[in-house]
């Protein structure tokens, strides 16, 4: 996690969370945008996230470079517009931004396929955020754990997760593309999730 260490107190100032910790740089940028329409903060976010968004757009294979650029602009504008909906106590900035990118990419696919639909990808996303401190803390711990364990996944499992998430393919599509049985795709995803300790409790 990056910490902001070079900003002077005063205008904007470092933001402290409930435990008195500094929040991470990206949460702080979002807060500055929400409260002060801060373009410098927006520029920092852009320089970090826009290249990731472009890579994400291009991993979806069917988008042209023009569409990828269009998507980057659209996502960054949404980030600007929706920043006040970001709550640093409850969500991680990277997850919040990724979710916008994912939804915009899905909507772009559907526009390109000329879907005539009253629903946006955001409409069919779960929108509840827990208000309970215990749950919020639990989520933060699991998020840190997932990010740390992700680097240790074996290649075949990481490859499948990449196809499902970054390329936006269903398990069936991944099986077809890699020419392996659907059961193998599912078991690799399951193994990966087990290693990341994401599981259903009974």
């Amino acid at each position, binding site marked *: 996690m990056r910490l902001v260490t070079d900003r002077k107190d005063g205008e904007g100032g470092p933001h402290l969370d409930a435990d008195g910790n500094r929040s991470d740089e990206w949460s702080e940028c979002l807060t500055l945008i929400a409260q002060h329409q801060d373009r410098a903060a927006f520029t920092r976010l852009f320089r970090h996230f*826009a290249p990731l968004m472009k890579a994400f757009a291009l991993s979806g294979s069917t988008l042209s470079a023009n569409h990828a650029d269009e998507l*980057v602009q659209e996502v960054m504008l949404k980030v600007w*517009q*929706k920043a006040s909906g970001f709550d640093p106590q409850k969500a991680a900035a*990277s997850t919040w931004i990724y979710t916008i990118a994912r939804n915009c990419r899905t909507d772009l696919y*559907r526009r390109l396929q000329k879907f005539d*639909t009253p*629903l946006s990808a955001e409409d069919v996303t779960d929108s509840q955020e827990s208000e309970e401190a215990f749950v919020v803390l639990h989520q933060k711990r699991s998020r840190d754990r997932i990010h740390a364990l992700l680097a240790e996944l074996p290649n075949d499992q990481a490859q499948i997760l990449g196809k499902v998430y*970054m390329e936006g393919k269903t398990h069936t599509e991944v099986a077809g593309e890699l020419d392996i049985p659907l059961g193998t795709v599912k078991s690799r995803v399951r193994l990966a999730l087990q290693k990341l300790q994401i*599981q259903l409790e009974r």
Partner: protein
Amino acid sequence: MSNLHPDLDLLTEYAAGSLALAQAACVSIHVNDCRRCQRIAGQLTDLGAGLFEALEPSPVGDAQLNAVLARLDDEKPLEYIRKKSSTSDTPAILQRLMRGDFSDLNWKNVGSALRISYLKTGDPQHEFALYHIRAGGRIPEHTHRGTEMTLVLEGGFSDANGSYHKGDFLLRKPGDVHAPTALQSEDCICLAVLDAPLRFTDWKFRWMNPFLKLRTV
């Protein structure tokens, strides 16, 4: 609280955004009302964010940045309004698709106990329909040519495998045969998302099979 949930495969595809629109809509209605699935979907989305941050960045020039900066003035930040839990018990997505409530819909009677209303999601590959079964009414025995997601919205029903109540999510695989019967106590409303038409196995209804088509409206 529901007892039956989407499995981890489905929740992963849902969190990754790779589910078809009609299926994603059905899963999200369940998840929005199920804290257990919300928690897992949240973790699966955090996983997506981790993969996103680990991508090899693809260069974006200053021209793009400047183009976006120039557009910021036109795009004033939205005043964020927390979604109020509406007074209606009906899920928001359905209210949107129905443009009203269950009573405002166009229902087609299928026999005496069942009526069906097809909703348009814009997903060309999936039928998205509400089934209203009268209390105690039975749907003729049928099988599925494809997969069927069922979400119980009101009341409940039972079949040879068990009974299902409000909030329960079921995934039927091709070849599963059943004859759901609504609980005696109240009418049952279910959402069903199909990727292929049903096929009746009940002799009295088999003549209909050649006429059954997927209705995406």
